[in-house]
C-alpha cells in the first residue's frame, strides 16, 4: 500500500499570536509546529505500513521553514518527502492548495491519501475533500479507524453526539483523519540521524504553473480582517433555588463555556 500524507506547518497553538501589519494574517516570526490532525494522519499511515507493508510519502506546501515538518515525519519513519516550496503557499485557500497537491498526485498515483481533518490555523476542513474531487476519487472525512476489506477499506467516521458511521470504500481514496485516533510516536534520535539520508524532493511554484497559474490570487476565499477578541468582564448572577442555580450552571458549563 502506497500512502501519501499531506502535512502542514501551522503557528504553535499555545504561543502568543502576533498579527501582521495589515491585520490579515499571522506574522511570520512566530513559533511553528505540525498541524495536530496531520500528526495523527502520519501516525496512522505508519501503522498501516507496519501492518500491510508499502510506502509512506509525506508532502507539504509552504515556505522553507515548513521543511521541518517533513524532517520530523522522515525521522518518525516516512520513506520520502515532497516539498512544494514557496512563501506564497501560506496564503493559499483550500481550493488552490488542493489544486497544487492534485497536480503532484496526478503524476504519481497513491492507494491512499491522508490529510488531517482540518488545519489548526485556517480551520477550513476542505482541502482533503476538494482534493478527492479534483482527483475524481472517493473520500471520507473525520476518520477514526481504517481496516482493509476485500479490495478496498472499511473506515469508521465520527458523527455528532457520540454516533459513528462505518463506510466501505474502494481504493484509491482520500481520508481526512481525526486527532486522537492513535498514540503518536516520538522521533527517535537514530531516526533523526537516518532521516538525513532519505529523499526529499523540492517542487517550485513555477513547476505548478498550469495547476495554480495565479498563485494566491486565484483564491476564492479572502480574509478581510483578523483581530484579537476584546476582553470584556461580565459577571452574571444566577438566581433561583440552589437546585435551579446548579442546573443553570451545569447547562452553561456544558453549552456556553463547553468545559463539561
Amino acid at each position, binding site marked *: 500500500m502506497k500512502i501519501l500524507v499531506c502535512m502542514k506547518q501551522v503557528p504553535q497553538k*499555545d504561543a502568543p499570536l502576533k498579527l501582521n501589519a495589515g491585520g490579515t494574517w499571522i506574522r511570520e516570526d512566530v513559533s511553528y509546529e505540525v498541524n495536530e490532525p496531520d500528526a495523527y494522519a502520519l501516525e496512522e499511515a505508519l501503522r498501516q505500513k507496519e501492518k500491510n507493508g508499502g510506502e509512506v510519502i509525506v508532502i507539504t506546501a509552504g515556505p522553507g521553514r515548513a521543511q521541518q515538518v517533513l524532517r520530523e515525519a522522515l525521522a518518525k519513519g516516512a520513506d520520502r518527502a515532497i516539498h512544494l516550496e514557496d512563501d506564497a503557499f501560506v496564503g493559499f485557500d483550500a481550493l488552490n492548495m488542493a489544486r497544487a497537491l492534485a497536480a503532484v498526485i496526478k503524476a504519481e498515483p497513491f492507494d491512499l491519501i491522508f490529510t488531517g481533518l482540518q488545519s489548526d490555523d485556517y480551520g477550513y476542513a476542505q482541502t482533503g475533500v476538494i482534493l478527492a474531487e479534483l482527483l475524481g476519487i472517493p473520500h471520507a472525512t473525520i476518520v477514526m479507524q481504517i481496516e482493509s476489506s476485500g479490495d478496498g477499506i472499511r473506515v469508521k467516521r465520527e458523527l455528532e453526539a457520540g454516533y459513528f458511521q462505518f463506510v466501505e470504500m474502494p481504493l484509491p481514496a482520500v481520508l481526512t483523519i481525526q486527532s486522537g485516533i492513535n498514540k503518536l510516536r516520538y522521533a527517535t*534520535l537514530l531516526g533523526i540521524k537516518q532521516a538525513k539520508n532519505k529523499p526529499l524532493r523540492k517542487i517550485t511554484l513555477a513547476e505548478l504553473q498550469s495547476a495554480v497559474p495565479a498563485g494566491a490570487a486565484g483564491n476564492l476565499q479572502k480574509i478581510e480582517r483578523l483581530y484579537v477578541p476584546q476582553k470584556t468582564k461580565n459577571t452574571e448572577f444566577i438566581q433561583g433555588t440552589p437546585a435551579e442555580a446548579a442546573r443553570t450552571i451545569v447547562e452553561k458549563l456544558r453549552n456556553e463555556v463547553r468545559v463539561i
Partner: protein
Amino acid sequence: MVIPFRGVDFLEFDSLLNDDERLVRSTARQFIEENLIPIIEECNRAGRFPRELVKPMAALGFYGASLQGYGCAGMSNVEYGLVMQELERGDSGLRSFVSVQSALVMYPIYTFGSDEQKQQWLPALQSGEKIGCFGLTEPDFGSNPGAMRSRARKSGREYILNGEKMWITSGSIADVAMIWAKVENPKEEKDERNTRNTKDECVRGFLVETDRPGFKAQDIHGKWSLRASVTSGLSLQDVRIPESNLLPATQGLKSPLMCLNQARYGIAWGAIGAAMACYDCALQYAQLRKQFHDKPIASHQLVQEKLAWMVTEITKAQLLALQVGRLKDEKKTQHQHVSMAKRNNVWMALECARLSRDILGANGVADDYPIMRHMMNLESVKTYEGTHDIHTLILGQNITGLDAF
C-alpha cells in the same frame, strides 16, 4: 495553578541551531513533558527513581547518544547537549541517570574497552537492558580521587578488588559498575608499551558485574537533593573478576577524568534546562500574581530586576554551552572550556532557582511548582563532577600556569 513550560529564547538562540538540533530538542522536550512532568513531584516526595522511564528513554536513543555504532544515534555534541538540557528541565535526577549511563559508563567502554567488552555491554546499555554506575568517589576522597584507597590485585588470570565507593549514582540498581581502582604491583602489571612512571599510572578501570560475590550496594537515605535518583555506597570485598574485565586502554587518573569531562559538558547544558524551568515558571507566575494596587508583581521594579538578571544569565549560558559544543564537534575543546561552562552554568542555574523561588513567595517553597526541587537538585550538581571551587582552580591553573590545589 499549572504553569506550562514554554522554553526561553531571548536572543534568537534558535537561529543558531539547525533543523536537526531543534528536532532533537523538541523530541526530548515532548518526551519529558508527557512522561516525566506528570510524575516527577510524586517521585521527588517519595524519593523514587522513575525506573519505568528507563526503557522508553532507551527507545528514543537517549543513552550513549553521541557514540557511533552499537545501536547508538551518533548525535553531535550540540544535539547531545540539547537532550541533556531538556532532561534536566524535567529533573536533574533523571538527567544524572542518563549522564552516568552515557558519559560515565558507555563512554569509557567505548573509549577504553576491548572489542569483546564493547560488543557485550554497549548494545545492552544502549537499549536499557542493563544499567551502569560509575564508582570513583570514596568516603575519604572526593575532589582528590587520585588518593583513592580502592585496590586491584592480580591473581592468576583474575583481579581481586577491594575498596569502598561513596555517592554512586544508580549504584544499587546497576548491573555493572565501572570501578576505578589502583593496581597493586604495577611493575608486574605494566607492559613494555608503557615506560612512563607517574604516580597516577596505576589507576585503572574495571567492569564489575554487580552480582559478583563480595559486591554490595547500599542506598544513601535522607538526601535533600536528587531525590528522584538513586545514590548508593558500594563495598567491594575480595571481589574476583576475570582479567578480561579490565578496560585495557585505561591508563592512570586521566582516564576517569576524561569520562568526567564528557559528563561535565552535559551538565553545562543540563543546568540551563533547570534554570529555564525556574525562570519561565517565575515569569508566568509574576504576570498572574497580583499584589499592591491590584497590579501583577511583574510590574514591580524589584521583581523585574530579578527577571532581567535571569534571562540575561540564561542567554549567556546558552551561548557559552553552544560555543563549547561547537568546539567539541570540531574536536577543539579543552578541559578548561568545559570547566568554565560547568562552573558558570550550574552557578547561574542555582541563582535563578533562588530568585525564582523568591518571586513565588510562599508558593515557591511548595512542590506545586518545580522551583524548590530544582534548587535542591542543583546543590548536588554544583558539587558533583568537580565542585564549583575545584573548577575555579582548574581555570586558575590554566590561566596562570600555577597549581593552587
